[in-house]
């Protein structure tokens, strides 16, 4: 490693008062502020998950009551979905590195960016309030008429929280989209953009087009609850299934809000640690857009057993299978990028390997659920639970950790222990599989989700699952420990510890307050590793 120059003034030490953080318009600081809130939400969500897993170690309902159990899994999902998975990569890593990657001084609307954070926190506080008053028991999907007429839990508060948080997501998407269109440095053409930027662009598309629909839908439920309006009310002739249509019009594409940005991260990390250009760059770029657009055409596969028209279901089933194509394009291209690459075994790549394996399983089991006949058997069983955890946790969270480990030196200027990070990646991978693989079998055998008691023959698999969750918890805690430790004792990272291409590595670590000493001029593609005389040990 060459001599490391630590920038005298960087975005962290330029001002250190609390007000300078709370009023900052710097995209890097806002990214860090999201990290803090999301970490808190992740912790809360994990606590509820622990409650669920403890209850399910025995067939009897001996740890919590059925009602409490309903609240546990609902609050787990509400925090994890709306306050972790949706913002985790775009709002933290996207905010931090996207403007750097395109050579901009900031996002297009920095004040709006700060406002998004406050909106996010406001929504979070409403949801915390709902939790403090006893939580919500409807499941995170808020299906009517249970959420509108029946449930006696704090649906209204949580609904308001989610409604508000939705606007944070919309504003972030808007900001990113305009930034990518209007703020690129000279020479940064569309096909020189890093694939993470492409992924964020596709994500913004979904945030902009989908989130408003769920916001108004939750708003309608709130009107029913608060004022007795009747839009989904079957007593008046309203249709509860309409709620499901509107809800999944957003919430299925929302899955792509969660998975597309981590996919972008994977492209960055794989290129860097196999020292190669990403195989089929333009295919990977366009597959992101294809996933975003196709994602809007498949939502009713969540409604196959809700009484929808079988003809419509066939169309939705077919379209759901079609989404597998762009996803497979990505997976094959990543593998081809690794192939004959000069693999550099470092921790971020370990997380990527975890992602690849788990995303593959998650994606393929999705095909089971897209097929009409199988879905009748598997719907609302643990098979579904396992499937989406493989995508959401195995995919999105592993991808987030890959990105966090990749850009941590850039964000903090410090290196973490590569050995511990590798161990953590392995622990999470093993723990994850131990937790969720048995759930595939449980679901196949017919164990329904959202029940706190179950027949005795399912106990072995459930105990396996719960013990896996403990390993998972150890893995995640380890990450938190060595990352926090690195803040104080970590080695200085230098501008480019991974010898990576990309504009974010051309500025100091941590970056300067306005990113670059002068606006960079781009004259090559994003992953020109072959042109570089880079020898890595």
């Amino acid at each position, binding site marked *: 490693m060459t001599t490391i120059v630590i920038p005298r003034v960087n975005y962290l030490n330029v001002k250190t008062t609390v007000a300078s953080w709370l009023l900052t318009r710097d995209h890097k600081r806002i990214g860090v502020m999201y990290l803090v809130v999301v970490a808190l939400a992740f912790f809360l969500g994990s606590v509820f998950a622990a409650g669920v897993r403890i209850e399910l170690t025995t067939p009897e309902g001996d740890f919590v009551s059925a009602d409490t159990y309903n609240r546990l899994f609902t609050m787990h999902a509400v925090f994890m979905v709306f306050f972790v998975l949706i913002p985790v990569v775009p709002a933290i890593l996207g905010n931090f590195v996207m403007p750097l990657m395109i050579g901009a001084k900031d996002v297009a609307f920095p004040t709006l960016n700060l406002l998004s954070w406050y909106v996010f926190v406001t929504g979070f506080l409403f949801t915390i309030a709902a939790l403090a008053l006893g939580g919500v028991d409807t499941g995170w999907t808020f299906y009517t008429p249970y959420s509108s007429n029946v449930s006696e839990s704090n649906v209204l508060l949580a609904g308001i929280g989610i409604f508000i948080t939705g606007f944070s997501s919309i504003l972030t998407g808007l900001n990113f989209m305009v930034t990518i269109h209007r703020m690129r440095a000279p020479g940064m053409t569309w096909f020189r953009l890093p694939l993470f930027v492409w992924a964020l662009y596709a994500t913004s598309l979904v945030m902009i087009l989908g989130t408003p629909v769920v916001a*108004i839908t939750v708003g*309608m439920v709130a009107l029913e609850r608060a004022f007795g309006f009747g*839009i989904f009310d079957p007593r008046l002739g309203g249709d509860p299934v309409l709620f499901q249509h509107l809800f999944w019009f957003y919430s299925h594409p929302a899955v792509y809000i969660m998975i597309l940005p981590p996919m972008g991260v994977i492209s960055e990390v794989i290129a860097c640690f196999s020292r190669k250009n990403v195989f089929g760059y333009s295919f990977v770029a366009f597959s992101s857009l294809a996933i975003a657009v196709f994602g809007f055409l498949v939502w009713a596969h969540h409604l196959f057993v809700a009484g929808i028209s079988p003809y419509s279901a066939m169309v939705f089933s077919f379209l759901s299978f079609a989404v597998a194509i762009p996803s497979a394009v990505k997976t094959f291209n990543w593998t081809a990028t690794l192939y004959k690459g000069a693999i550099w075994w470092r921790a971020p790549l370990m997380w990527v390997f975890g992602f690849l394996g788990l995303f593959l399983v998650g994606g393929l089991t999705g095909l089971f659920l897209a097929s009409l006949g199988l879905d009748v058997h598997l719907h609302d069983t643990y098979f579904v639970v396992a499937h989406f955890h493989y995508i959401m946790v195995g995919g999105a969270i592993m991808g987030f950790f890959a990105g966090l480990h990749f850009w941590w030196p850039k964000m903090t200027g410090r290196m973490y222990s590569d050995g511990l990070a590798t161990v953590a990646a392995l622990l999470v991978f093993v723990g994850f599989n131990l937790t969720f693989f048995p759930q595939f079998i449980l679901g196949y055998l017919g164990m329904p989700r959202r029940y706190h008691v179950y027949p005795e023959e399912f106990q072995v698999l459930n105990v396996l699952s719960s013990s896996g969750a403990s390993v998972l918890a150890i893995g995640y805690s380890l990450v938190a420990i060595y990352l926090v430790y690195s803040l104080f004792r970590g080695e200085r990272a230098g501008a480019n510890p991974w010898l990576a291409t990309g504009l974010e590595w051309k500025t100091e670590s941590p970056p300067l307050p306005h990113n670059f000493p002068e606006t960079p001029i781009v004259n090559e593609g994003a992953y020109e590793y072959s042109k570089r005389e880079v020898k890595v040990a």
Partner: protein
Amino acid sequence: MPNGIVAGADPHGHGHHPALQHHFQTLDQQHEASTLGMWVFLVTEVMFFGGLLMAYLLYRVWYPEAWAEGSLDLDIRLGGFNTVVLIASSLTMALAVRAAQTGAQRATVRWLLATMVLGVTFLGVKVIEYAEKFELHHVPGANFVYEGPHGRQVEIFFSLYFGLTGLHALHMIIGVGLLSVITWMASRGRFSTEWYTPVEISGLYWHFVDIVWIFLFPLLYLVDRAHHFA
């Protein structure tokens, strides 16, 4: 500038315009970012109303009689009057933007004020309509009363009527608030032929709100009147 990338010096030579924010290279880039931002925001607004309109569409297909009954209960004169008012406000808004483009400061202020007056008129009429619905117990909820063969479905109609027009009125209120800030800025001489972006993007927003009403008027007030007056 298809991609909005401007390298080097500002072609117009006013790089230090007081309205230029530090992270933009030129006022043009800033202007293009702002207008694109507003257009994208309006896309989210279309989808926002879209959820309610989807519900409208389904129940209109299912319950045509209830829709006709509910619609006949609305005052077509007030609705029509408001339509004229709102389209006129779109005209004055367009003229305000034009005045700002040509640097006519006093005309900008005048047209903006006219737009606001029309906007407030619209809201005033809406208050009259809502008040009447309250008196007749046509507001959905525990106190809803409707004497008619399709009372239950009419309640859905009124739920959507209040949902749609209420959301629209909320947008009007926000619009009037936005315009008062812009008017104040215009009267202080903040805009010039070089920089009138806030007037323009407020105009985009205002026109969008007008468009929503252009759809709401026939969807809510003009359902199946023919059968009852033929």
